[in-house]
């Protein structure tokens, strides 16, 4: 699975411009699903299985998009001003590298602020792609770029940009690959534009109108020096999300996940996240409502160019998801 993860994380695909990621994923899943299609906003949807007695229509969601930047102005000397797509932080930009969709690479730097210890605002930053003039610059206003960092593995710890949420897409792909028998109809939704407001999942959920929704995304961990206090740690298993800042998971879905993990003797953790939300919120609020929850991959340094996950957590997430999908689900 590591090479799958590498291929996914190293593809460029900021929100609204997920085509490359979509193409990579589509090639991998085309033969695995009963039906594969792309909807009006660009969500990639793969259907597997039929609803049998006791079965349900289950929507899984992992988002294809990553945070990035979009060019707003090219000055006379070919330097590029930009704004952000999704929750990009200033600290992670300074000195960083980006790669535009058209392949152009650049370095982020900033104006002289008179004080080396001051953090620049986004308006004080610019990208240098090595051009000497506007006319000659290969980047135009509106071009998008993602952070540029290669995949690395430090033993079981995997590091890359865009673990959020390519790791989720990898989990979904692997689950689809290993899922042979299920009484449920499962929709694997590789969603777009999550980072800018759960937009793809909102419309995908409306289109599918599922009985149950489960997102697979990353969550913070509380296991770094003087970090946030949180009960989630890398290597302690996938996290069952109880709450985040945008959603209260359906308690019946949480129980279902916990009972299944216990039964299968899979490691798991209980997650309460105080900042950030996932596609599960969008699914929960759609139409007449959908009982929803989320399986989270603990991740350090989210929204930084080097996000870190534990490979065992990823594999256990796949096992948990498979165990959930193989069952007849009764949420009462």
């Amino acid at each position: 699975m590591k090479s799958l993860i590498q291929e996914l994380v190293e593809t460029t695909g900021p929100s609204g411009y997920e085509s490359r990621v979509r193409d990579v994923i589509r090639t991998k899943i085309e033969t695995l699903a009963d039906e594969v299609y792309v909807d009006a906003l660009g969500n990639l949807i793969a259907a597997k299985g039929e609803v049998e007695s006791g079965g349900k229509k289950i929507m899984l969601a992992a988002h294809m998009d990553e945070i990035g930047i979009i060019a707003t102005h090219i000055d006379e000397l070919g330097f590029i001003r930009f704004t952000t797509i999704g929750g990009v932080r200033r600290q992670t930009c300074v000195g960083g590298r980006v790669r535009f969709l058209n392949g152009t690479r650049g370095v982020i730097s900033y104006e002289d602020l008179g004080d080396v210890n001051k953090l620049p605002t986004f308006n004080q930053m610019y990208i240098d792609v090595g051009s000497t003039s506007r006319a000659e610059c290969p980047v135009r206003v509106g071009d998008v770029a993602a952070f540029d960092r290669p995949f690395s593995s430090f033993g079981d710890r995997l590091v890359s940009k865009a673990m959020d949420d390519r790791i989720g897409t990898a989990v979904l792909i692997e689950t689809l690959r290993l899922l042979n028998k299920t009484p449920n109809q499962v929709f694997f939704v590789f969603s777009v534009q999550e980072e800018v407001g759960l937009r793809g999942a909102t419309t995908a959920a409306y289109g599918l109108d599922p009985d149950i929704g489960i997102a697979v995304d990353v969550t913070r961990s509380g296991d770094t020096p003087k970090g946030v206090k949180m009960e989630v740690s890398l290597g302690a298993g996938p996290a069952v999300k109880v709450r985040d800042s945008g959603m209260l998971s359906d308690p019946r879905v949480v129980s279902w996940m916990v009972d299944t993990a216990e039964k299968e003797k899979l490691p798991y953790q209980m997650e309460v996240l105080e900042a950030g939300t996932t596609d599960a919120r969008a699914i929960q609020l759609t139409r007449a409502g959908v009982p929803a929850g989320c399986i989270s991959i603990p991740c350090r340094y989210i929204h930084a160019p080097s996000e870190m996950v534990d490979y065992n957590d990823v594999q256990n997430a796949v096992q948990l998801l498979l165990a959930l999908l193989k069952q007849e689900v009764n949420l009462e």
Partner: protein
Amino acid sequence: MIELLPLLETLCAAPGLSGNESPVREIIEQTWRPYTDELSVSRLGSLHALKHGSAPEPRPSILIATHMDAIGLMVTGIVNGLLRVTEIGGLDARVLPGQLVTVHGRQEIPGIIVQPPAHLLPAHAQSGPVPIKYLLVDTGLRARQVNQQVRTGDLISFAQEPTQLQGDTLAGRSLDNRASVAALSLCLEQLHTRNHAWDVWAVATTQEEETMGGARTSAFELRPKLAVAVDVTWGKSPGSPDHLTFALGKGPTLGWGPNVHPGLHQSIRKIAEQIEMPFALEAMPRHSGTDAFAIQVAAQGIPTMVITIPLRYMHTPVEVVALKDIQRTARLLTEFISQLEIDYMEKLLLEESS
């Protein structure tokens, strides 16, 4: 026969934090059962109660929404047997230290919210109000017992018992919005012996304090022709700005603004004047901060109104409400629903005719 005070006390005592409303839903279901024809639960846990109207089918329906969820806390971690917490719904951290709570673990465990002394807190939090993330809940149990009974994600409710104050008022937690649930209950009881043409959906919604998910999804599912959200508003009290608050005991307020259909507002106002019920106008320039915000834009849109009950000290465990205002709200709803004519929608206008 519904006795208001005992009903309120029962409703307020029942746990039911946003996202986990089933305990209070059961009580509401029992209360509404004798006065309604059909009861069901939505996919997100809202209670839907239908009372049939007398007009021939197909009958239009009016939805009355009262949110049943309450604010509280959730366990984020356990350290040495003490609980770290986060809020459910909007809480002012200054209200918390010293409050009695109930921890809903494997069993109900009493606890206190405690404020660690300054020297045990990071430098920037040592003076002034202590933010929620640094507060702890102490149950008095030893760490081993706590770890067996409680885990991350468990809920914590305020434990304040309701108390009667002077002038027929009640102080307690969760009067936001159980006071409105009580008003709707009285209305259903009254409608039981009145004739009304329209179908009535009484809906106890979930998650208003967090996502308004209940109102949004119930409105989408039920598609009423009209909707009224009943909630609480800021009551006049020491320290609260005069121009944004409303006196207790002077009746409910009728909302006005982009979140309210002007014609529906006028119709309900006329009824209030007709029955000589005191009320105040509540100007809501941008939005109502109630379930009406979600309901108004469900599917193809629903004409919506907001009626609110003045309440002091909102989002504290000592909220105060005047029982009379709850009764008036119930009566206003009953009279409006009873007088709704079958062709009301054809006459409903956005513009006042000048």
